[in-house]
Structures are given as structure tokens and as C-alpha cells.
């Protein structure tokens, strides 16, 4: 290196104490990676997204005995560097130093689940090929011991050519030795050997060497000629030059003649090598203590009990979101109202007070109100994921979801959307395939959420007679059920259409690990809940707040007029021609415009409209007003049905749009969601009203 080279030139060459060391934490999903990350960082970390993509990025400070600045980056759980799964591709590009100009990490901590050594070592064997120092953290050693698996770490370390530290993350055993081993490897920069699995005698070696030699001549240079050689042989990457391509085809043909399939031989050789490594370093007594998982699986995936258990667990989760969140939501409502009232007392009357109280404080309230539901849902998902049940839920539901182009892992996000689409859309991250994730997000808001409930209740109470059908069912209840079903059926249809059109693609493999059942770690679960809530408040919250302010402005300006003459009221009047074919008037129009911010606002704005519009000074109950209008034929049953259908479909929740923007990383998808839902709402409402008129529901219903 030149003596006068600037610091920026040093960057990305080799670790030197002058800049913070970047250490990547890599490993299979369910390998205990999160526990190791938490223990190494002492829970001092930040969560963000990788720029431009919606894959979670966790970065924490790693305290080392002598090196003062080290950053630990938690990569998405991966099974392989060569992958089609979106999250795993991010992990691969970070490890290869190809992610947005970031240099490759200085060291990799590979977390290896000691109860599942062979499969975990597959990914590790790929990491060892990267030419970066690797420290292997053998996790869950306590569990392995209880299963009668004994691993001789010094032999394993010698065979793999990298230091191996046995840890049991839950009691912090071994974490200190892991720290010092990381520091040793950083200082010595010993990269190990790599490609030990590629036995010199195998025909593949000749092909790899020939292609790798050619690849080193490429310009721009490839970082890992041997890895490039392997990936063009297997067809997972395209050769970077035409010459390379020709030679590659030659080599594939040569291997084929020797009866070696280029696409599968690499994995086979790796696993053969791993098999030898494991046999030499490990002795397993008997697979006795898998019995917990076996006993639980006997029930939880049983033909009858499995479905019952699934229904019970989902019902419990759903009820908890619905019921458990209602009290904290009331508290938040009350607290926001109290703060608003206090602020109103302190501030002089005027525009500024209105901005602070009705705009800002109410806007912050509209962000905070979602927190209980998000927290409860992610608490449940955390428990289910950490205990191993989430994979079983996907296993049980896959058959049904697949009919609509979705998969088992879409079930929980869609179910939680009945409480609120926000946590539902956020939890779609548990779906590894991008097209399945997007489809799930796009249809999640069609599930009738709890914010529609006040609208449904009001209109049903006002317009649907309280008949009893068949002796037990109330007609009102049946209409309510019908509205929910309408949303579900439509969501499934839209999902099918999306998967057949815009989100079509090669069907993504379902192939999924079913982790062993274990007691979930409360620390991990609770911290995950906090991360989720914080992420929501930071990113979606700001958009929601901004939209609240816009809505406040529309409803309160120009100054000193009632709501009918406000901008919102004028928009309500302006859209009246569009509402007339639905049998609705401008009052409802204002309610609709106002509730584009959030559906539940419909009820309160309608109340405002009717109270302000009436000369009668006595406070009028909204239900009475609607009943009276119903009786007078001003507001018909047909129009009410149209309005209900409109609320089932129309995308009237800016928070949903804000979260969709964040989770898809795309305005186009967000706009698409708004347009398709609202168009569907309008079209279906039109059909309902005209249809109802045809069947004679337009007049007074006595």
C-alpha cells in the first residue's frame, strides 16, 4: 500500500485497526442465530431495512477485549449462498461484498446448530470458501448433550479448518470464548483453506480449475473465480464472458459423459465431505430425546386433532388481538383526548390551537392506536415461531391456501388482518418468496378489520330489521357474517387473479424445515415485539401523521365555516354525482371523504355532518337520524347495502397504504392497491344498489 494513501483507499482492502471491523453473523434459520446475536451485542442494536429492499437489517456494537470498534451485522437466515429466496440473496450479496458498494465483511461468525450438524454445515462449507476468516459458533450445545450428541470441537475445528466455539446462548456459556476467538481471527486474518470438500481426485476439479483460471482474466475481475466457476457449471449464474461460456459448455459435456451431473454434483460432494467430518468428530448415542417433538407432532399434525389444535390456537390469537387490544386502545384514546383537552386549555383559541389539538395530537394518537394490536400479534407470532409451531401452521394450511395461488405461510398474516391489516401486512415478512409475500400484502386489507366494525354496526342497526331467521340466527348477525365472507372470498379471488397475471412466475418451492419444538425464549420474543413497534412508529408513523394533518386541514379550512363548506365538505359535494347512482347523498360523501384517513372516522364525521346540518339544537343520536331518514325514504335499504359493500372493499385507510409502501418498497404497488380496492368498492356498490332496486328494495321497508 502506498504510504500516502488516504483512509478512503484503505477501506475495503483488509481489516486494519483504523476503522471499525465489520463482522457478519450468518447461519441457517432456526439455528439459534438471534440468541447469539443478542448475547454478543448485549441487546444493544438497531433495526433498519437494507436500503431499497424490505429485508430487515440488524446492526449492533460488538464489544471485544482489545479491538474497540466492531460492528456485528445479523444477516437473514440462509440455507445456501446459491439461492432463489429473496432474503437469502441479500445475505449472499453482503457476504460476497456485492451489496450496494459495501465491502465484504472482515470476518464471518457462522452459527451452527449442534443438534442438526450436517445440514447446518452445508452453508458453513460455502462460507469457508469465501476467503474471509470464519469463526464457527456451535449453538444449542446443551440441547445436543441432552440428546446424547457429543461433539469434539477440537477435531471439528481441525477438519473444517476454522476455530469452533461451543456455546449455549441461553446461559451465555462460551460467549466470552467466542469474543476472544473473533478477536484472534481478526488480528491474525487467518482465512482457512476452503474447498476442502472438493476432493482432488474428482473429475469436477479439472473443470473448476480450468474455468477459474479463465475467470481470473476477466475484467472487471471476479472476486471469487472458483465460486463463479461452480455457479456457471451448475447454471445458477451466467458466464461473464462468451469465451467462459463456451468452455463451460465443453466442461458440462465432459462431465456428462463421465455421468456427472454438473447441477447436482457440488451439493452431493459437499454433503459427502460433511458426512465424513461429522462421523469423525461426533458421536451420537440414540435419538431418544426427540420424543417431545414427536409427541407434539403426533397431535399437532394429526388428521383430526391437528386441525382442531390449529383452529384453537388461531382462535386464541385472534381473540387476543381483538379483545386484548381493546382496553389499551381505549387507554390510548383517553390519554390522547386528555392531552388534547389539556393543550386546548393552555392555548388561546384559534388556528394554532386547532392545529395542535385536532391536527397534531389527534394525528399522533392515530399512530399510537395501532400499537396494542401490533404488539399482541407479534408477541403471538414470536411465541409460535420460536416454539416451532409457525412452520406447523403453514404445513397444515398449505393445501387450502395453494388453491388460491398462496401458500401455508400466508395464513397467519391474512388471519391477523381481520383485527387490523397493519400488523397483518407487517407479518407477511415471514413469507420467504417475494411473489407470495406481495400477493398476501395486496389482499390482506380485504379482510374486514376491526375499524370497519363501527361502520358495519351502525348501518346494520339502522337499516337491517332485527328478524330472527330459522329460529336461532338474527338477520343482523347474518348480514354481518356475510360482509366478512364477502371480503374473504374476494381476497381469495383477487389472489388467484394476481398469481395468474402480474405476480405470475415459476412456482416457488414450498420445501420447508420443521424445527424441533422447544420452549420459546421470552427475551427474544419481547425484544422482537419492541423492534416491530419501533419500526412501525418510525417509518409508517410519519406518513400516517402527515396524512392526518392533511385531513385536518381539509376538514377545518377555509376558517370559520361549518363542515359542509370546508374543503372536505366541498369534495363531498363534488363527488355527489358519483354517489347518486349508489343512492347516496352528499352527507355520506363527506363521511366517505373524511374516512379515507381511517374508516372508523366515518361514524364521527357523519355525526358531525348531521348535527351541524340540523337546526334542531338538541343533540341527535346518529342512529335516530338514520332511522328517520330510512323511514322517510331519503336513505334507502338499497343505498345502505351499497354503502356496506363499499366499506368491505374500498381502501380507506392511509395507514394501510403507508405500511404497504414500506413493506413493498414501491409506490406503484401502493397505488395499485388503492386503485383496485376502491374501484372494486365502487363497482360492487353500484351493482348492489342497482340490483337491490331491481329486486324492489329501493322503497320504504315497513
Amino acid at each position, binding site marked *: 500500500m502506498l504510504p500516502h494513501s488516504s483512509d478512503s483507499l484503505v477501506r475495503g482492502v483488509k481489516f486494519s485497526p483504523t476503522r471499525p471491523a465489520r463482522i457478519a453473523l450468518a447461519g441457517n434459520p432456526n439455528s439459534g442465530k438471534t440468541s447469539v446475536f443478542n448475547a454478543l451485542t448485549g441487546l444493544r442494536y438497531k433495526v433498519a431495512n437494507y436500503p431499497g429492499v424490505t429485508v430487515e437489517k440488524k446492526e449492533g456494537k460488538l464489544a471485544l477485549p482489545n479491538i474497540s470498534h466492531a460492528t456485528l451485522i445479523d444477516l437473514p437466515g440462509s440455507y*445456501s449462498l446459491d439461492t432463489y429466496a429473496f432474503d437469502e440473496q441479500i445475505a449472499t450479496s453482503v457476504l460476497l461484498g456485492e451489496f450496494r458498494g459495501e465491502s465484504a465483511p472482515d470476518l464471518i461468525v457462522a452459527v451452527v446448530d449442534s443438534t442438526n450438524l450436517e445440514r447446518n454445515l452445508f452453508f458453513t462449507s460455502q462460507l469457508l470458501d469465501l476467503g474471509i476468516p470464519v469463526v464457527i459458533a456451535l449453538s444449542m450445545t446443551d440441547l445436543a448433550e441432552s440428546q446424547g450428541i457429543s461433539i469434539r470441537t477440537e477435531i471439528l475445528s481441525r477438519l473444517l479448518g476454522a476455530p469452533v466455539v461451543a456455546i449455549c446462548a441461553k446461559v451465555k456459556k462460551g460467549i466470552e470464548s467466542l469474543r476472544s476467538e473473533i478477536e484472534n481471527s481478526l488480528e491474525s486474518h487467518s482465512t482457512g483453506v476452503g474447498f476442502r470438500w472438493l476432493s482432488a481426485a474428482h473429475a469436477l476439479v479439472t473443470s473448476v480449475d480450468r474455468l477459474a483460471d479463465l475467470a481470473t482474466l476477466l475484467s472487471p475481475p471476479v472476486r471469487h473465480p472458483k465460486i463463479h466457476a461452480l455457479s456457471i457449471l451448475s447454471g445458477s449464474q451466467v458466464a461473464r464472458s462468451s469465451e467462459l461460456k463456451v468452455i463451460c459448455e465443453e466442461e458440462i459435456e465432459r462431465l456428462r459423459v463421465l455421468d456427472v451431473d454438473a447441477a447436482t454434483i457440488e451439493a452431493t460432494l459437499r454433503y459427502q465431505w460433511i458426512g465424513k467430518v461429522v462421523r469423525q468428530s461426533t458421536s451420537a448415542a440414540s435419538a431418544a430425546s426427540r420424543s417431545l417433538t414427536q409427541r407434539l407432532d403426533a397431535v399437532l*399434525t394429526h388428521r383430526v386433532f391437528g386441525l382442531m389444535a390449529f383452529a384453537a390456537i388461531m382462535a386464541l390469537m385472534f381473540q387476543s388481538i381483538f379483545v386484548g387490544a381493546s382496553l389499551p386502545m381505549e387507554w390510548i384514546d383517553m390519554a390522547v383526548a386528555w392531552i388534547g383537552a389539556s393543550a386546548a386549555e393552555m392555548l388561546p383559541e384559534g388556528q394554532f390551537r386547532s392545529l395542535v389539538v385536532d391536527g397534531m395530537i389527534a394525528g399522533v394518537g392515530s399512530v399510537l392506536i395501532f400499537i396494542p394490536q401490533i404488539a399482541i400479534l407479534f408477541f403471538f407470532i414470536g411465541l409460535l415461531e420460536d416454539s416451532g409451531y409457525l412452520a406447523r401452521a403453514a404445513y397444515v394450511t398449505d393445501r387450502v391456501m395453494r388453491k388460491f395461488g398462496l401458500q*401455508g405461510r400466508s395464513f397467519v398474516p391474512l388471519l391477523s388482518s381481520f383485527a387490523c391489516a397493519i400488523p397483518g401486512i407487517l407479518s407477511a415478512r415471514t413469507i420467504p418468496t417475494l411473489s407470495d409475500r406481495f400477493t398476501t400484502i395486496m389482499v390482506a386489507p380485504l379482510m374486514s378489520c376491526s375499524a370497519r366494525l363501527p361502520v358495519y354496526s351502525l348501518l346494520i342497526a339502522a337499516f337491517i330489521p332485527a328478524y330472527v331467521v330459522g329460529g336461532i340466527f338474527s338477520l343482523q348477525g347474518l348480514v354481518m357474517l356475510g360482509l366478512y365472507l364477502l371480503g374473504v372470498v374476494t381476497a381469495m379471488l383477487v389472489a388467484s387473479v394476481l398469481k395468474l397475471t402480474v405476480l405470475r412466475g415459476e412456482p416457488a418451492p414450498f420445501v420447508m424445515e420443521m424445527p424441533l419444538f422447544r420452549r420459546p425464549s421470552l427475551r427474544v420474543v419481547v425484544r422482537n415485539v419492541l423492534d416491530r413497534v419501533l419500526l412501525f412508529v418510525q417509518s409508517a408513523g410519519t406518513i400516517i401523521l402527515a396524512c392526518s394533518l392533511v385531513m385536518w386541514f381539509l376538514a377545518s379550512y377555509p376558517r370559520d365555516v361549518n363542515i359542509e363548506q370546508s374543503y372536505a365538505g366541498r369534495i363531498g359535494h363534488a363527488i355527489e354525482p358519483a354517489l347518486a347512482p349508489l343512492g347516496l347523498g352528499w352527507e355520506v360523501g363527506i363521511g366517505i371523504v373524511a374516512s379515507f384517513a381511517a374508516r372508523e372516522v366515518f361514524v364521527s364525521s357523519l355525526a358531525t355532518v348531521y348535527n351541524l346540518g340540523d337546526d334542531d339544537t338538541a343533540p341527535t343520536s346518529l342512529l335516530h337520524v338514520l332511522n328517520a331518514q330510512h323511514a322517510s325514504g331519503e336513505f334507502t335499504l338499497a343505498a345502505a347495502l351499497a354503502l356496506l359493500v363499499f366499506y368491505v372493499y374500498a381502501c380507506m385507510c392511509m395507514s394501510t397504504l403507508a405500511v404497504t409502501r414500506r413493506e413493498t418498497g414501491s409506490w406503484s404497488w401502493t397505488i395499485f392497491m388503492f386503485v383496485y380496492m376502491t374501484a372494486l368498492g365502487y363497482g360492487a356498490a353500484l351493482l348492489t344498489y342497482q340490483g337491490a332496486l331491481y329486486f324492489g328494495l329501493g322503497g320504504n321497508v315497513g
Partner: protein
Amino acid sequence: MSEQNAQEHLNTTQSFTTQSFATQGAARLKITLDKLPRGTAAQVLKVKALSRALQQRLLSMGIVEGASVLFKGVAPLGDPLQIETMGYLLSLRRSEAAQIEVTPILARS
């Protein structure tokens, strides 16, 4: 899959028997993984996955030539399937299992 069917299948595929290490010597019963009776262990002969994404995933999960798999069970609604391989549990759809060629090694139940 009944024995008769399996035998028929064997007859039609016999001529394609490869010399891979999983099939050394005499031709063995060759069926796809989804046809394996519940509780049966088998050895993987070939992953003839139709899509590169599926092939890649199966290989990295340890479904390689010569690997042993044990058919554990079926989801309540008849699909996907659950197998055990390398001491861990893996679930995959019937249609995916149909792309994996195996030979049964011994019946456990």
C-alpha cells in the same frame, strides 16, 4: 403405491438405471418419494427437479444422491408431506416429492 405398480414402474425404468453410487450392482426398486409408504425409509437416487429453484433448495436441504429419507407423515388435508432426513424434519409438497427418485431400503412399520 402397490407392489405391482412399483414392479411395473421398475420394468419400464430398468434400462435407465444409472451407475451412481446409490445403485451399485443390481437394479433396485425405483419410485418417486411421494409414492413411498408411510414409515418407510429410502435412499435418494436422483433429484430430477423441473425448476432450478426447487432443485437448488432440495440440494441445499440435504436431498442429494445417496441421502437417506424417512417418510414421516402427511398433513391433515393430505398435502404437504413430512420426511426426516439427516436427523431433521422437512416438509414438502406432493408435487415436489414426485420429482425425487428414491429406492426403499427397509420398512419400519
